[in-house]
């Protein structure tokens, strides 16, 4: 049980590249924190800094109020699950899990019982004598998890642990990880580029971009009130629609495309050029001509439970995605009329991308 605190943590590589720009973060005891962002945003680097696999260039990282900048990885009392499992190929699965315990001087009977217990939780009891290469991807992932949980560390670190698994297994393991973490109550930091994983696992989500934490909050907070255009576009699938817009002089509307007026309820200066964002699920079909936006179908994706419609509107420069429940039959070039939920419109500064 532990807290993890980052105080202006920075990472600059010897070649001068700054991967992490001063991040402040306080992870509470038992909290499941997810770092999410596109590749190259520094999320893995940040995790590796907490693990001690990357040095910290400036600032401080503390575990349980103890600064660990100079503490060896093995002394930080953390356990990490790697993307490619990183199991020791020459050891059988029992030894893989026992290795960390042996090096910490646990007694033989202690090791035996701890590994058996972890194997029971992860349903690996029948595979302990085998070597990692004799297991399937999902089982290897379990061994890697087992190696982490046998030690009952202060902090779990996960570096995209599910991205090498197939889609179905990924969903199963996702639930299992969440379940396990809640049961053990161990503070966890989880890195992923998959926003579904991020939304479902996180108690608290950190959206990173270019070495900066763009927004920190609960998944729902971030979904409902994205702090920047980047966050708005990254969280939510399919991605939010962005329209170049202008605030009307009376401040009550935004004008998009070829003079389409949308009601808004924002505190914003009239005449200002902005980016208006609306999620595909906050658009709905209206009777012909009654909606706010009239658009033409470009492509349809039917997923069964829902249908995604990609439309062009205005002079064709703008396009929007519409998400409808159930199945719908549309043909290319069908004209549709869409209603926008006014209270779901997000406005972003056109220059800074910040939420208005």
């Amino acid at each position, binding site marked *: 049980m532990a807290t993890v605190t980052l105080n202006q943590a920075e990472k600059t590589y010897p070649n001068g590249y700054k991967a992490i720009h001063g991040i402040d973060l306080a992870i509470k005891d038992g909290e499941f924190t997810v770092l999410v962002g596109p590749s190259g945003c520094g999320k893995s680097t940040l995790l590796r800094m907490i693990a001690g696999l990357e040095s910290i260039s400036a600032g401080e990282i503390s575990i349980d109020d103890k600064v660990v900048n100079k503490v*060896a990885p093995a*002394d930080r009392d953390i356990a990490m699950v*790697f993307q*490619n499992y990183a199991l020791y*190929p020459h050891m059988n699965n029992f030894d893989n899990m026992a290795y960390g315990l042996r*090096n910490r001087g646990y007694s033989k009977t202690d090791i035996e019982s701890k590994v058996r217990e972890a194997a029971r939780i992860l349903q690996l009891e029948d595979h302990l004598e085998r070597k990692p290469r004799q297991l399937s991807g999902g089982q290897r992932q379990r061994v890697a998890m087992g190696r982490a949980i046998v030690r009952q560390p202060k902090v779990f670190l996960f570096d995209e642990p599910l991205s090498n698994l197939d889609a179905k297994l990924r969903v199963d393991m996702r639930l299992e990880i969440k379940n396990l973490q809640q049961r053990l109550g161990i503070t966890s930091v989880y890195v992923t580029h998959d926003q579904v994983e991020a939304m479902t696992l996180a108690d608290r989500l950190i959206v990173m971009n270019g070495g900066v934490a763009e927004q920190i909050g609960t998944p729902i907070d971030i979904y409902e009130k994205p702090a920047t255009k980047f966050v708005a576009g990254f969280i939510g699938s399919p991605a939010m629609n962005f329209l170049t817009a202008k605030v009307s002089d009376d401040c009550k509307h935004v004008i998009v495309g070829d003079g389409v007026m949308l009601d808004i309820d924002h505190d914003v200066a009239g005449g200002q050029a902005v980016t208006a964002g609306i999620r595909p699920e906050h658009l709905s079909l209206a009777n012909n001509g009654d909606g706010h936006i009239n658009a033409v179908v470009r492509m349809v994706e039917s997923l069964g439970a829902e249908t995604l419609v990609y439309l062009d509107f205005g002079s064709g420069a703008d396009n929007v995605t519409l998400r409808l429940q159930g199945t719908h039959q549309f043909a290319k070039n069908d004209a549709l009329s869409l209603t926008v939920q006014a209270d779901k419109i997000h406005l972003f500064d056109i220059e800074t991308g910040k939420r208005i």
Partner: protein
Amino acid sequence: MKRVQFEHSAVPYLFVAPQILIISIFFLWPAAQAVYQSFLLEDAFGMSSQFVWFRNFEDVLSSASWSRSAIFTVIFSVAVAVISITISLFLAVRADEVIRGAKSYRTLLMWGYAVAPPVAGLLGNMMFNPLMGDLYKAFNSFGFEFNHIQNANDAAFVVILIAVWKQVSVNFIFFLSGLQGIPKSVQEAATLDCKSAERRFWTITFPLLAPTTFFLLVINLTYAFFETFGIIDVSTKGSPGGATATLVYKVYVDGFIGADLGGSSAQSVLLMIMVSILTVFQFRFIERKVHY
């Protein structure tokens, strides 16, 4: 399972023909000749020969100089293999950790590979020359009474040193690539699990390098057996009194200098048998234990 059979044509045989020809002319035919010669006894002038069955073998096996050479060969080979593997493993592990100027380090450490064995022998010969050799002088100035011309142990030390030096760079290349073949995440996982770098090396890195080490052991023993001929011929020539003559060198001395073709052929046949047994043993018993 039924194999797919394609129509046969002569073209593939044409492609392998040059290789088969080379092997036949330079390997199979001489080997057959050696076996044949080993049953013959020739007169001193090479004018006539007579079939003597296994007498040559009996002579060889009962000769004191042959057993002495065999013992030296075993000590020499094991020493060369173990010492050069140890040194190059150490160098490879250290060079793998270097970040700045890694390429220059590695290139320099590999350079020795380009030196031909006789050249290495010549270099050693010069360094241990009693008149101008720096190492010879250095050893003696430290108070060792070093004299490889007369002392068998000192002479053995010289040939082992040269042979090891020549082989370190080859082993280094294999160990370095072996080290780089260990996934970085596995090593990182180990740093989380084990604080002591030394313990990590023996429990993770070294076992993962075991197949490489085994391969090098085979290569190095073969090298020490056969390829060190050039080194010995240029440096000690088997002196003093045959103390540094490996079996291969002795085959050459007895056959080409001593003109005992039958005896030297018998020796080379014995050598062939020994190496075959060694190879079978290595692959049967050791290889099984090193692969993970």
